[in-house]
């Protein structure tokens, strides 16, 4: 066999999770369940060094995320340096904590784009749907965003508990003057995986939501663009996760751990480099964590001989581990996977009307700490 593995390209997409602190408690959050273990966030100087090293490798799209990134009071400083280096800078925020003063400073620092998430899900969602005060807060954020020349991009995570209110959600988005609305169905990792039985919608709910989306698209005639991301549990082929492991994306967590995706830290038996002690170059090119699932050489059957293996790279490693307890197996979303029944069973269960209420686990430090002891990291 001829080794024809070409070296990976640069990490074009860099996502900095600058903090795990967050004023919200979203039950579908993709931050690790044991996020409360991480108490020491990197300093401004550390983040700036990461920006410089990654840019030198070729990183160009930058996401500033969290937690709630606005909770870092050096966000302007980080943005200034990122802009100077030539990044295209995307802020991913709940909008909580965004003031006129901060948006002015961020704009002056060179921030290119803002994506605002609906303050969502049960605790906050009920509040949002029923209280004018919360809507007014969102409206102020939307007005600020637009007044500074940014398009208003709203991201809303859909799940069983809010998907039936999509009509109301889109009506609010229109009143907020949104230019783009991303309706992202929940992906079942981390907190969302803990809460999966409560969050997974039925097929009928999903189809109704698609019809609602279509109706709005026709009515709006292109004024507000709506993107609808179908949940992979309802598919028969897995997603091309992160465009392929270690091909395009690098995430850096608040404590400096470099990961090929937001959730990879949960995978057992992998060591991920920390950019406090390792250069970004070495983390990307040399570390076992990034090299482990690059290409197709690691695959088992049915992936290894599958003619679609280059198309989806066997799907998501985290999902394979979470569902089948084996990071090397095919993503169970694939109907060629020997574990596909795990997905169809979850979907089948979601068709039934709830006989019992599934208790929700809110993403907060107390719940995180309670689930950290002895649990696999990030599980």
């Amino acid at each position, binding site marked *: 066999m001829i080794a024809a593995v070409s070296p990976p390209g*640069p990490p074009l997409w860099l996502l900095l999770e600058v903090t795990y602190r967050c004023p919200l408690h979203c039950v579908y959050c993709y931050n690790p369940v044991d996020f409360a273990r991480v108490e020491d966030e990197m300093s401004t100087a550390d983040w700036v060094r990461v920006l410089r090293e990654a840019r030198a*490798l070729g990183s*160009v*799209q930058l996401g500033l995320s969290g937690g709630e990134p606005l909770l870092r009071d050096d966000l302007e400083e980080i943005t200034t340096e990122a802009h100077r280096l030539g990044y*295209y800078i995307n802020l991913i925020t709940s909008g909580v904590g965004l003031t006129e003063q901060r948006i002015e400073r961020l704009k002056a620092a060179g921030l*290119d*784009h803002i994506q605002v998430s609906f303050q969502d899900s049960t605790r906050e969602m009920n509040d949002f749907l029923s209280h004018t005060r919360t809507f007014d807060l969102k409206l102020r954020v939307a007005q600020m965003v637009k007044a500074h*020349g940014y398009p208003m991009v709203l991201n809303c995570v859909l799940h069983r508990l809010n998907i039936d209110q999509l009509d109301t959600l889109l009506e609010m988005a229109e009143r907020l003057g949104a230019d783009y609305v991303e309706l992202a169905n929940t992906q079942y990792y981390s907190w969302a995986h803990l809460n999966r039985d409560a969050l997974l919608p039925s097929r009928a709910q999903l189809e109704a939501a698609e019809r609602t989306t279509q109706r709005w698209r026709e009515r709006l005639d292109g004024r507000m663009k709506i993107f609808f991301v179908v949940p992979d549990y309802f598919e028969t082929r897995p997603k091309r996760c992160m465009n392929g492991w270690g091909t395009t994306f690098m995430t850096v967590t608040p404590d400096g751990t470099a990961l090929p995706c937001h959730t990879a830290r949960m995978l057992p038996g992998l060591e991920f480099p920390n950019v406090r002690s390792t250069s970004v170059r070495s983390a990307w090119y040399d570390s076992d964590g990034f090299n482990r699932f690059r290409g197709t050489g690691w695959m088992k059957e049915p992936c290894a001989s599958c003619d679609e293996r280059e198309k989806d790279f066997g799907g998501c490693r985290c999902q394979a581990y979470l569902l089948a307890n084996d990071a090397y197996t095919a993503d169970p979303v694939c109907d060629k996977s020997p574990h596909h029944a795990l997905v169809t069973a979850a979907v089948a269960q979601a068709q039934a009307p709830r006989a019992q209420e599934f208790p929700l686990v809110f993403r907060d430090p107390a719940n995180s700490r309670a689930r950290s002891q002895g649990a696999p990291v990030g599980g």
Partner: protein
Amino acid sequence: MNAPKAAVADDSKLSIGRGFRLQWEPAQNAHVLLYPEGMVKLNGSAGEILRRCDGARTLAQIVADLETTFNQTGLAPDVQDFVAFAREQGWLEVAA
């Protein structure tokens, strides 16, 4: 969906579309267009056209500059095609 692309007049001034940024990326050895959460890697000719769309020059001036720089003639139809396409994608805006 194959509506003819709106032709751009020769005296139109062209600039990079709002929300897009054009820059040279040494790591990719190419011009790229950056936009929210995405990127288009441009081929050589696309990059040469777009880098001249500075909001000051007209389409005719851009064609003339390209023909001089690359010692060619008759580039107008190709440039116009690309410019019409780029405008549809939102990469370019027509000032006047």
